[in-house]
């Protein structure tokens, strides 16, 4: 059925004058459950079905999408895509040049999940979220919102190169936000969940001892690998949210930062993942997401991106990661490659129509579209910091810090459009004095320059502390599209970073 529809689109595109065409027939399922305190707010099931046809005609891209899933509907979309390509070819300067890609014939790939979240009864999910809320309320929270997001992309992709690729991709994200209020002073504080969105099934919701990693002594924090204990984290979150109400407000100045992987992931995402997207580097995103300081000329100068400890790798393969697929959305088999080696920038992230610009002849396989009705383009693969080669635990790292701050979780984050200047917060902060955690602090944000920050990287914990952080709704492109991406790291120390105090009065 899908092959017949795909061929109708490819044939119509060729007859209308396309030199290349691909078609993506997608069934996109999502389910989300939202609760607050003792009640369910919303349970929503989404299903969207349709097809997008992308063509090259007169050396110019064209794209059209339709929810009319029959041969006639797809042929019509293909013809409209060619019409758009031809209209735009009048203002096209350089014809699009695609890196060669052999056809794979009929192949398939599936996220290696143990339990399909869509087959778990909704009542079971509601029960778990409400139990987590109860843990938070029992431990002193005034409010708690929790949610569970699940996504299943069923994609059938075919090209005039001779590929017919069937993929079944799964993702899951449990999360919550716990709020503590002090009515008398009018103060309120929140602590976010320390879960990560993952490319896993419902097995992520079933906690396993081997997936838990203890955080620094005296914080009670637990890091989670391939399964998450939402009850345990909700109870701790309530205690920490209350702790935030009375925590000391940070004194601004230079601190050594010890960053948990569930926090550092977003810093990697913003200050390494985005600047090394080749479309940004070349100016294709200049009108929206921005460009990059890490231009081809900058790379030639050979200046260090980070200290010698910094090794950053891109991949679309890591099991359990959000980026893992068998083939990308233009039919390229996925792989792993180095971006930064021993502190030096060695490569970018690129797709078929960009490889020739950097003198390469293959795509990295990181092309993605978030729906059948959006056009595929270069998206960030998983971008991860390799753990340290020497044995090093978090407690041993903290022991060596004289004046520092330990930061866990996701908070406020902002960075400029060329990725030089950033300001990041977290969800929970602890002061480190003379090698010891001394208590929670508040109103912390660090402001740094990307290169100074990565060059101040002083120590990285070993493989045993390595975990994935994830971004479920990363935005880019016009019209804006979301994508989900993971970032792995172990706890890492950065020396002498500028910390500001964010408290104000209104």
């Amino acid at each position, binding site marked *: 059925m899908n092959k017949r529809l795909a061929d109708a689109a490819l044939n119509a595109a060729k007859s209308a004058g396309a030199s290349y065409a691909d078609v993506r027939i997608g069934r996109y399922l999502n389910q989300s459950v939202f609760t607050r305190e*003792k009640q369910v707010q919303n349970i*929503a099931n989404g299903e969207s079905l349709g097809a*997008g046809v992308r063509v090259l005609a007169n050396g110019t891209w064209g794209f059209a999408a339709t*929810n009319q899933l029959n041969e006639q509907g797809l042929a019509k979309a293909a013809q409209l895509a060619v019409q758009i390509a031809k209209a*735009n070819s009048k203002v096209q300067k350089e014809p699009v040049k695609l890196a060669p890609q052999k056809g794979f014939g009929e192949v398939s790939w599936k996220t290696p999940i143990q339990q399909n979240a869509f087959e778990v009864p909704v009542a079971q999910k509601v029960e778990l979220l409400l139990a987590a809320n109860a843990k938070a309320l029992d431990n002193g929270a*005034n409010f708690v919102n929790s949610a569970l997001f699940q996504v299943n992309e069923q994609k059938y992709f075919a090209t005039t190169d001779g590929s017919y690729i069937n993929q079944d991709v799964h993702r899951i994200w449990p999360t919550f936000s716990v709020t503590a209020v002090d009515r008398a002073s*009018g103060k309120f504080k929140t602590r976010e969940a320390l879960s990560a969105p993952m490319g896993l099934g419902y097995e992520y919701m079933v906690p396993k001892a081997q997936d838990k990693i203890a955080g620094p002594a005296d914080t009670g924090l637990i890091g989670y690998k391939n399964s998450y204990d939402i009850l345990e984290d909700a109870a701790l979150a309530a205690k920490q949210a209350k702790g935030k109400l009375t925590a000391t407000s940070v004194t601004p100045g230079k601190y050594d930062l010890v960053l948990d992987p569930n926090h550092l992931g977003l810093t990697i995402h913003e200050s390494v993942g985005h600047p090394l997207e080749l479309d940004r580097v070349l100016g294709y995103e200049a009108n929206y997401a921005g460009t990059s300081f890490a231009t081809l000329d900058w790379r030639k100068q050979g200046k260090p991106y980070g200290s010698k400890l910094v090794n950053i790798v891109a991949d679309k393969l890591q099991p359990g990661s959000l980026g893992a697929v068998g083939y990308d959305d233009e039919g390229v088999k996925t792989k792993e490659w180095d971006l930064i080696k021993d502190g030096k920038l060695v490569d970018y992230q690129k797709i078929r129509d960009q490889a020739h610009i950097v003198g390469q002849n293959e795509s990295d396989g990181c092309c993605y579209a978030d729906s059948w009705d959006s056009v595929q383009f270069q998206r960030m693969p998983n971008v991860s910091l390799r753990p340290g080669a020497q044995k090093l635990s978090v407690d041993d790292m903290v022991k060596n810090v004289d004046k520092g701050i330990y930061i866990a979780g996701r908070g406020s984050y902002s960075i400029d459009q060329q990725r030089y200047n950033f300001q990041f917060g977290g969800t929970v902060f602890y002061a480190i004095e003379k090698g010891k955690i001394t208590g929670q602090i508040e109103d912390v944000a660090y402001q740094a320059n990307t290169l100074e920050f990565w060059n101040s990287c002083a120590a990285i914990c070993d493989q045993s502390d390595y975990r994935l952080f994830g971004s479920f709704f990363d935005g880019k492109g016009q019209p804006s599209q979301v994508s989900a991406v993971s970032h792995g790291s172990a706890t890492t120390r950065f020396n002498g970073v500028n910390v500001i105090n964010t408290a*104000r009065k*209104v």
Partner: protein
Amino acid sequence: MPILSKDDAQAILKKVMSFTKADECEANLNGRTSGNVRYARNTVTTAGAADNVSLVVQCWFGRRSGVATCNQFDEETLRRCVQRAEEIARLAPEDPDYMPRLSPQQYLAANSFAQSTAGITPDFRAQAAGDSIALCEARKLTAAGYLEDGASFAAIRNSKGLEAYQQFTNVDFSVTVRTPDGLGSGYAVADFTDAAKFDAKALTKVAADKASASVSAKAIEPGKYTVILEPAALVSDEGLINRLVYAFDAREADEGRSFLSKKGGGTRKGEKLFDSRVSISVDPTNPLAPSGVFDNEGLPVKKLPIIEKGVVKNLYYSRFWAEKNKVAPTGFTGNFVMEGGTASTADLIKSTQKGILVTRLWYIRDVDPQTLLVTGLTRDGTFYIEKGKIKHPIKNMRFNESPVIMLNNIEAVGRAQRLGGNLVPPLKIRDFTFTSLSDAV
């Protein structure tokens, strides 16, 4: 197919109502046909068109409810969609915030659809991109831009016989022009209901002029400065005024977790929290910025002042929270109108001894919801003003500022302009807080 007439849309929705065995049912049908062209490096990059209609069905058994969606409208799919919503509803726990469906309502009329926009072709878009690129090439500049247009409809029906229908059109254009050495950058953005008002060349010229003028920017010391914030520095998806307007939820304020929460309990409604020149309303039938006249439940959206002469006038009440507090619920669909004066941006510059002109603020994120403190950066055209004239371009800077503090430090209010479907004037603000320099251009 995507733009269904009122009758065709209601025919599908009536069918949905006939399939359900639930106590109550509500269905939303939304359709959109849209096209876009994207260009960068003075050449077109991607372009596309998409058609879609999607249905959201919500069913209730007593206080239990479930939602399902689909985008195919054969009888089998519609029945399956209703069934899934019913299944979820049966399994769902009782909702303490339950409210019964609304009975039929009266709606205002908004001029939110223009035939000129609905008729845009791929050639029209290619021409606009071509004009924008040609202007930049002639001046040895590099353009990156995006044009999107669409026609859409929203229809609702519920089991109490409420029905609502509205059509919309939109044209959204933005362009960033850069100098070939990467040392200058300028931006322009505009949106329209009626495509006849759109002029790609005029907007590109604004961005090109700013790009050329912003080369060789000088660094100044971060600190507190008088700023003139142009509309694109105030309004965007993540804008300062957008954030303020979205923070007026009554329930959060009552619960003690909003900047509008009162110390010791209650809300700050009625308090003067802003300069007297600040007045902001929700106003769906404003002729310059029309928007939706009903919300997702079919509740009418009418003109609602939220800030009047600096005083917190109204907060948003959901139907549940309104009933609990014995007040009228407020529909809210998203547009807002901030009152302006008569001065142009040029007039605001003329009256400034020392200050900074900000074209655009970017990557704005919450830092502290307690005070609405946000951070972000200037971008695409930041200039130093001295003695009523633009003196020289300056390097971009990061700011940490709260719109609540900012709207107490008003020096002057300019003429309101449409942006993002809203109306907002350029503002002159004193003591705006910049905290660090950025090398980004």
